[in-house]
């Protein structure tokens, strides 16, 4: 009995690990059912034995488990070569800066010059471009300043960087082949899958230019593919291939997320799939808690720790490469800025006495220094007193002298302490802002290190940075107000600069502490989040997610004499993929109901792998509805790739189901679809590769009204 059970466990197949139950045929289930009823109790033993018998019968008939072999390797190579040819055809063609090459080309240059820059994407993909550029002779001098600059005139070796993007983009096609094979379908289906990916015009456009998405999709595809293969070996935990595919999943996931944050959806996908697989294992009473925990931690290691490590390593490389800074980045803290070579560090005396001249900086923002100047408030409601603002740059008007409050006198040198009532006297105008200092530390005030609030004694309000821009009469500096019971974050200050010209003042010079590497990474990531959220614009080619699945509009990339590059997908692929996702969901739903009602299947549609791919698609698509920032068509490409895989697998599944005379039907279906896709590919060939085309061709391309390909460029 136990032997049989083990067999049962190890013999689990692709189709039944998953979320969709592999249905028994009617007769069998009815017998079980009737037995249950007649028996009236759960006789587990009897049932188990019954199941095992059934299992043994079924095991012979199952063929869907895939073992990749030599043929697959050959196919892999063949597809790669073909795909690279498709991607790299005339790759040097627009010898001008196209679209976002402005940014990513420039960043590569800055990596080479090793000067610091800020970008809202993680560094890996950009580092890869840098490496490719370096190897192929780009020297980092050209600065990619604006779209349309000519590479040849400036003697730029740009093809290498484009080749990187193209080759990685091309490698997605063989990955698709493996994925389809690993999902339990035949070689023909695999080839069809790779063809679909290979001839997708949108992906081609994307991967022929220096853009990050191609690299991100490459990693996404390999991660998803590895997981699919991994699911074929879940029954042999801790073997070499088990470890290999698991680690491969994690590795590519880490790379993807270090290229673009959109890959977070991939993390969600792999995460959900893993949790589901772990959930299914709970059911198996032969897996002891110990085994279970081992598997759990192995997966945590490969799918959480490894990607995280890769992400961090990419940032470590980023900061190792970029060690110089040209100008301090006002978006970052002082500590961050001075950790780069070439930044001026501010030095100051350490101790603050009554009579010290200080420059007070707002701590948690980079708005700047407490400032005043000889101009009065001008609003009708205001007091017409002298303005006090926050000003971003150190100058003479930022200096204040700390004096004791009116009812206290100070003899000689006295440290300013927590709880003291002080006044800040503006150095150059002599005006006074009455305040009481309440430093956070219980000790005396120290420059830079002590963070404090200034609480007004009379009104019990704290000096607060409201982050509002003042009107023009106040030189558009930042507003400072006094707010009761405000949050500490915006009302915390520190002293950046102290000057003691009194006698006997101890002068110990200090400066900002440099940030550690970890500190830099944290601050950089924080800023990335902020910048991402701030991306609310009105770009003419920005689009919302509901427009993507049916390709409502493309994106104009470049226009030249007689040719344009307009990113538009291969409509045939695009539409068929979207439709097949819907068809699959509907079929599964209907089939489920049908099964519940009649205990037989309407269509043999339940396939765990397709289901997983649909989940992947939805996870890469639906979250965009929640994202408020500006979105573009290219954000859909990862989801598109999943939908293409659904399409291919669904076709393969249906073809397998429908026909008895498989070969003929397969041939007919695949060749029809392939011809359709190839036709559509060649129709949009000119705008994908930027080759010359005629007005007539252009008008023919407008299958939908909204596709605003600029025909005025055509010949």
């Amino acid at each position, binding site marked *: 009995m136990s032997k049989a059970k083990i067999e049962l466990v190890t013999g689990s197949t692709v189709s039944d690990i998953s979320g969709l139950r592999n249905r*028994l045929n009617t007769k069998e289930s009815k017998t079980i059912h009737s037995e249950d009823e007649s028996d009236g109790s759960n006789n587990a033993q009897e049932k188990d034995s019954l199941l095992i018998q059934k299992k043994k019968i079924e095991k012979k008939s199952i063929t869907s488990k895939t073992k990749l072999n030599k043929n697959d390797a050959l196919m892999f190579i063949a597809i790669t070569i073909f795909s690279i040819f498709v991607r790299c055809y005339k790759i040097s063609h627009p010898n001008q800066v196209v679209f976002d090459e402005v940014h990513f080309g420039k960043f590569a240059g800055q990596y080479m010059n090793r000067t610091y820059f800020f970008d809202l994407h993680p560094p890996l993909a950009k580092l890869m471009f840098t490496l490719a550029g370096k190897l192929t002779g780009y020297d980092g001098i050209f600065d990619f300043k604006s779209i349309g600059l000519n590479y040849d005139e400036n003697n730029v070796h740009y093809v290498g960087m484009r080749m990187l993007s193209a080759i990685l983009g091309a490698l997605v096609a063989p990955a698709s082949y493996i994925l389809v094979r690993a999902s339990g379908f035949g070689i023909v289906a695999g080839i069809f899958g790779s063809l679909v990916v290979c001839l997708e015009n949108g992906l081609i456009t994307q991967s022929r230019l220096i853009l990050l998405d191609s690299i991100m999709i490459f990693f996404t595809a390999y991660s998803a593919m590895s997981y699919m293969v991994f699911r074929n070996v879940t029954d042999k935990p801790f073997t070499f291939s088990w470890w290999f595919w698991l680690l491969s999943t994690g590795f590519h996931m880490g790379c993807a997320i270090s290229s673009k944050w959109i890959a977070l959806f991939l993390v969600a996908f792999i995460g959900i799939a893993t949790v589901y697989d772990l959930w299914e294992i709970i059911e198996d009473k032969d897996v002891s808690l110990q085994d279970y925990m081992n598997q759990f931690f192995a997966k945590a290691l490969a799918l959480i720790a490894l990607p995280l490590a890769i992400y961090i390593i990419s940032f470590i490389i980023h900061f190792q490469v970029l060690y110089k800074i040209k100008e301090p980045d006002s978006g970052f803290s002082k500590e961050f800025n001075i950790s780069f070579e070439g930044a001026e560090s501010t030095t100051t005396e350490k101790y603050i006495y009554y009579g010290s001249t200080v420059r007070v900086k707002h701590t948690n923002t980079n708005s700047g220094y407490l400032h005043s100047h000889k101009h009065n408030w001008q609003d009708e409601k205001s007091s017409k*007193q002298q303005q006090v603002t926050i000003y971003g740059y150190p100058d003479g008007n930022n200096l204040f002298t700390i004096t004791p409050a009116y009812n206290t006198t100070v003899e000689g040198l006295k440290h300013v302490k927590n709880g003291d009532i002080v006044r800040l006297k503006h150095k150059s105008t002599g005006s006074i802002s009455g305040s009481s200092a309440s430093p956070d530390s219980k000790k005396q005030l120290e420059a830079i290190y002590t963070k404090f609030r200034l609480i007004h004694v009379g009104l019990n309000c704290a000096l607060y940075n409201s982050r509002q821009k003042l009107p023009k009469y106040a030189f558009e500096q930042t507003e400072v107000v006094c707010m009761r019971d405000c949050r500490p974050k915006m009302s915390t200050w520190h002293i950046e600069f102290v000057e003691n010209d009194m006698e006997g003042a101890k002068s110990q010079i200090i400066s900002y502490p440099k940030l550690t590497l970890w500190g830099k990474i944290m601050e950089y990531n924080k800023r990335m989040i902020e910048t991402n959220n701030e991306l609310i614009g009105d770009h003419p080619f920005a689009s919302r997610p509901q427009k993507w699945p049916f390709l409502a509009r493309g994106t104009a990339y470049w226009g030249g004499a007689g040719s344009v590059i307009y990113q538009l997908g291969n409509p045939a692929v695009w539409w068929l993929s979207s439709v097949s996702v819907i068809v699959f969901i509907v079929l599964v739903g209907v089939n489920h109901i049908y099964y519940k009602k009649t205990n037989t299947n309407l269509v043999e549609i339940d396939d765990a792998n397709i289901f997983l791919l649909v989940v992947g698609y939805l996870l890469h698509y639906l979250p965009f509805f929640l994202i408020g920032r500006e979105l573009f068509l290219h954000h859909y490409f990862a989801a598109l790739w999943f939908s293409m895989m659904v399409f291919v697998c669904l076709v393969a599944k249906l073809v397998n189901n429908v026909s008895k005379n498989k070969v003929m039907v397969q041939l007919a279906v695949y060749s029809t679809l392939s011809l359709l896709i190839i036709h559509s590919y060649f129709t949009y060939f000119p705008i994908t590769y930027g080759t010359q085309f005629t007005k007539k061709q252009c008008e023919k391309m407008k299958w939908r009204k909204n596709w605003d390909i600029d025909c005025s460029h055509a010949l």
Partner: protein
Amino acid sequence: MSSEKVRSRKQQRYYMNSEFNSASQHGSDYDFNENEKYNLANPSNDLDYVPAYQKDHAVFQSTHLNQAKLADPTSGKRFRFTKKRLIVLGLVFLMAAYFRLWKLSHPSKVVFDEVHFGKHAGLYINRTFFLDVHPPLAKMMFAAAGKIFGYDGKFDFKTIGLDYTSTNVPYASMRFMPAFLGLAMVPITYITIAAFGGSEEACLLGSLLVTFENSFMTISRLILLDSILIFFTGLTVMFWALFLREEGHPFTKTWWVYLILTGVNMGNALSSKWVGLFLVGTIGVWTIKDLWFRITDYRVTLNEVNKHFWARVLGLIVTPLTVYVFWFYIHFSVLTLSGSGNNFMSPEFQTTVGGSHLVSTMRDVYYGSKIRIRHDATNAGYLHSHASRYETGSKQQQVTLYSHRDDNNYWIIDYTLDQKKKLANSTNLNELKPIKNGDVIRLKHANTKKNLHSHNLRAPVTNKDYINEVSGYGGDDFDGDSNDDWIVRIMDGDNSVPSSFNQIVSIHSKFRLIHKNEKCALFSNRVKLPKWGFEQVEVVCMKHAKYPKSIWRIESATHEKINYDTAPKVSFKIPGFFEKFIESHVVMLRVNNGLTGSHFYDSRPFSWIYLRRGIGYWSEKGHTIYLIGNPIIWWLAFVSIVSFVAIQLVLVLRDQRGYNDQMFGYRAQYMNFTGFFGIGWAMHYFPFFLMGRQLFLHHYLPALWFGIVALASSIDIFTRKVSSKARTVIMCALLFYTLRLYFLYSPVGYGTSWTREACEKSKMLSSWDFSCKQYPSIAEKLAKQTFDKDQGKKDNEKIQEAEIVDPGQPQPIDNIDEEIRLNQPAPMINDEDKKKLESDWEKFKNEDVKGSASLQPEKKDGESNPENKNDKQDDKAGEIQNKEEKKEEQKQEEQKKEEQKKEEQKQEEPKKEEKKEEEQKKEEQKENQQVIDKKAEEPKVENENQVAKDKPAPAEPKP
């Protein structure tokens, strides 16, 4: 891990589920009348798994064969009150009525959002059109209440704190309406719990918890929408519960009545506030679940499923929608006069609310026509220009959108230079020529004679590469250039005037203006210009512009060569009800999403669950109304939800492993009863996380009600296995504690008087920011006495330090830790607070003045400055204050004489500059007083400038 195992186990679970689902079909098991006792006596009733699905079969047969089922006396007992229950409920209701209606007229002032909803009631009575982000029902109910009790709509509820007593606003009667609906929640809760099969004790507990929930009490006593929303939410759930009880007799009369009533009240909730959508979600989830089980149940025929499906579509989709639309219909038929809302709407809409000036205009537009152009998508106004220049970019004349009609909105259609040259040869320059689709035209501003112009310069506010500035260029003396040429592209027309599709026709033709050279389209996106642009809306020229926001239409046209009266006319179509309905929703949604500003008391959803902070509604000397919940209810309600989720997780995990726990037979009921309210809670809570707009604590109240019922049901189910004595003790203990806290926080709920000590003591979380300082206290005097004593003992230095501690305050206010703890909450400075601070400051100051009095002449600065009249007034005020405080001073002086001498000695030493500083300090103090005192808000010239004269001039601030 075999598929068979999976399947069979899942099938088991499926049977269990269908058993859960049909639990109420059994009826008999959960009928509270007899079965409660039965359940307690025979807990094993539901224990056995196997009989359960045999029973299921029986139930199936009964659902399948309607007649057999009807004949079956045990299948599904109707919900009926026993006499005892009625009496109990009656008593609870009377008690609740006392607590809810007590002192209803108390703050005879406008409180919090009464500002809005009172005003809206007035607008309904005046029938003037307004725009609000909430649907109309609740507001109309207030209007009705006001109308009935004699509110004439004249009082405008302008600001918080206005006094009702001098007006004849029947505010107490208007408040009675929400208070009564809030009160109705008590029996609603009772019946809901009973209908879900809760025990008698649970019904009582639930209704008492609702009675003694401070936040429900506070919010229902004011003219606010939330009480009405909660009422309709509760009513919907009650009818839904009663409907679920009828599941055993589908399609009977009672079944239909409850289904339709559920739908009607759902519609009402939705028409009170959009938060009602979450209620739709709650009922929807349950309905889908129910239908899914029916669909997947092979014993239910397709025909039956169909019937159930369409019945629910009718009851839960069609009915609420009808109700919702109906209230809007009433809304539009009441508001027929032009009002503040007009400008938000399209001209078509405005014609129905008193916008008669828009009625008709000349139909045809020719070269030379004088036209007014309206931006179609945003209703932001008309294409406008005026003789002011941009301060950025080209510095040419401004072109904006302006929402009001004035002379600067008129433009004249003109030929381009090329056309003029061509036409100059032939003589037909004066011939009337219509504007065709694709024509190239110029638009000349009628008043300033500048041409509408664009060029490759960035716009003043929207600084993007693909957006060009639009300006006025050229003029009478200068012909302009080719950048003044625009191509007309007609995008849409109207079928009533067929020519409007290929030639410009007023009102009907919707067109884009494409700049000929830059290929950009005239565009606007509701972006405001800065002050120099008079805060009008920016107009730009955008390449590849988006479709709707680049569409314009002509609202009025005249031509000097055509007699206006005889020319053919067109007018705006009068929109039907549904067009108005849709348009007002588009605008409401936009305004709702635009509510992103920050309010002093707004909060994020996460802080609601543990009641981090309330909302200050109103405050006056010694009285405050502060929305705060009853913490014990609040926290336990959340705990009951969390424990439900935790228990379900454990159960599911154990199911997966093959165990089959039944929770002493109460698993099904726990899932169906507590589960429903858990889902209700989640549906009313989590969606708020997705909302970007500002949120308040009162948004949580509907979820809280679900939580309270979940709490009552959890206690009910968990205590069924213990003895009835212990059960009573547990419930009584909870009730006792609830009551205690209710009365503890009732002063801030009702706005009655309190003492400071009690207030300070009552705060369970330091973040609750109702201000205790405003309540009278004896502690203050005591604190002062001890302070004086201490002072006598201390030596000089120590006194100096002691002075830093604010002497009048029982607690040190400038303690940073205290500050951080209290940070976010921020009571508005009310009168009481202000006076307190003032007097503290006064005392503080006087001690200082005494110290330096002998050194300098007082108030010299004020007199020496002839420009400053205010200063003198202030001085007088200061003197009066000083007189009052002199008495106090005299007392203190004796004690302080010695100290003063020492201080004087010290202060003689400092140099002259320090004296000046002393003067300044005094001025500072006066200023501070001014700031404190709102009456003295008038501007005042600084005296400090005099002192500052001899110092070096400040460097120019960098721009």
